[in-house]
């Protein structure tokens, strides 16, 4: 085996799942776990915020949008800094780097989920809401039983592309020394100092397979507009 490939082969377990045998999750597997955990959190928080924004007017709505713009206006790396340093300072004790990265990514992504969900709700035809209200449903029932189910199905492609961005964003965990794929790859590179091209191309290929697969999925979902299956 040529030495350029041998370097990957000898470190393949470390790159893919870190020191899993010693109980320390790392590498690609940790990247995926971080993305999944923060994705689920961001989806729940983002949809909850969208519901809040849907019903609120005036100051509450303005604060929500200001909050979302603020988060989107600063580099993600600073959101991670804030969670990593501010949470222990406010509540005492230390939180593990992995947890702070999950919280930071969830916080950052929930703003985007809120925006997409709101625009998904607004894209529904106005007749849907009026018809639901005229059958005697309350505003809350209308949203939960009529509008959200339709909007959420239409929104599946945009949620999937947000998840692909989330996978790429997990690479920023290097800033607080979390051993996910990018961190582990740069450790291997620092230790060997020999074949940076192979190491970083391999790392890029791992992300490419995951995110490229997801964007293919998005394209297929977009081609066939999904219709609600219960009508």
């Amino acid at each position, binding site marked *: 085996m040529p030495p350029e490939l041998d370097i990957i082969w000898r470190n393949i377990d470390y790159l893919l799942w870190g020191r899993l045998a010693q109980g320390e999750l790392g590498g690609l597997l940790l990247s995926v776990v971080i993305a999944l955990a923060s994705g689920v959190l961001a989806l729940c928080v983002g949809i909850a915020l969208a519901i809040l924004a849907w019903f609120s007017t005036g100051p509450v709505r303005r604060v929500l949008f200001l909050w979302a713009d603020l988060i*989107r*206006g600063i*580099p993600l790396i*600073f959101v991670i800094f804030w969670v990593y340093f501010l949470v222990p300072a406010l509540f005492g004790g230390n939180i593990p780097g992995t947890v702070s990265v999950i919280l930071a990514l969830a916080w950052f992504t929930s703003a985007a989920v809120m925006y997409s969900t709101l625009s998904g709700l607004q894209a529904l035809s106005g007749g849907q809401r009026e018809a639901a209200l005229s059958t005697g449903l309350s505003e809350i029932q209308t949203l939960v039983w009529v509008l959200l189910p339709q909007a959420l199905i239409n929104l599946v492609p945009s949620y999937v592309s947000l998840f692909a961005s989330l996978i790429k964003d997990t690479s920023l965990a290097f800033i607080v020394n979390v051993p996910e794929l990018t961190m582990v790859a740069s450790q291997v590179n620092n230790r060997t100092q020999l074949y940076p*091209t192979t190491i970083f191309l391999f790392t890029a290929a791992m992300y490419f397979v995951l*995110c490229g697969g997801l964007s293919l999925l998005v394209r297929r979902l977009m081609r066939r507009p999904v219709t609600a299956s219960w009508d």
Partner: protein
Amino acid sequence: MGFSVDFAGVLSGAPLHWLLTGFLTTIVVTIAASLVASLLAVILLGLRISESRAARVGAAGLIELFRNTPFLVQMMFWYFAAFGLLPTGIRDWINAEHSWATFPGNIPLVSPEFIASTWGLGIFSAVFIAEEIRAGLLALPKGQSEAAQSQGFGHWASLRFILLPQALTNSFQSVVGQYLNLMKLSSLATAIGLAEITYQVRQIESYNSHAIEAFAVGTSLYLLLGLAMGRLMLAFAPKRRDGRNETGAGNAA
């Protein structure tokens, strides 16, 4: 709360000096990378919408490659791998002292860190800018290009005079958003040792542990820069001629 806030540790002496040069470095690398991004975006867009199938497929592949890998990994690739593949003569020249190419505040413009950051940010953003403009083109009604063709316009002439001006007007806000994104992404150049705002903020944090204050100042600097950039770029927004109103607020972050 378990901490007290003291901004004097950040806004005086050496830390203040670091922050100022960091701020300047962020501005300089953002401008340089924006120029690279604009140039590459034009080339990519040209290939992506050309009449040659090979050019279209090649450009599409390149775009997918850059869109589906993390920017940080791309940056590390350019700095640790691609730089080493350059001929020794060029590497030695880049590594040498260049007093003529040093920006006030001791910011070296010809250094591996600055060149890798500028190139990495430039090509990454170019991909997104080209795709935003292409999306603007695809959103135009089919009648526009058919009308141009029936008037005798060729492929490039109809693009230049009929389609691209409309596409640019439609996608202007999203394109501005991509340049703002470039500025925010420059924070990741800290990973390869470019001494911009984020690098300096972390230096202050390890120098006198005024972490919270340093992060607060760093955050405000990025917000300020984003607001200023957004205002400046939207001032150049093309006027719509179809009577539709401009949508969106001042900060297209």
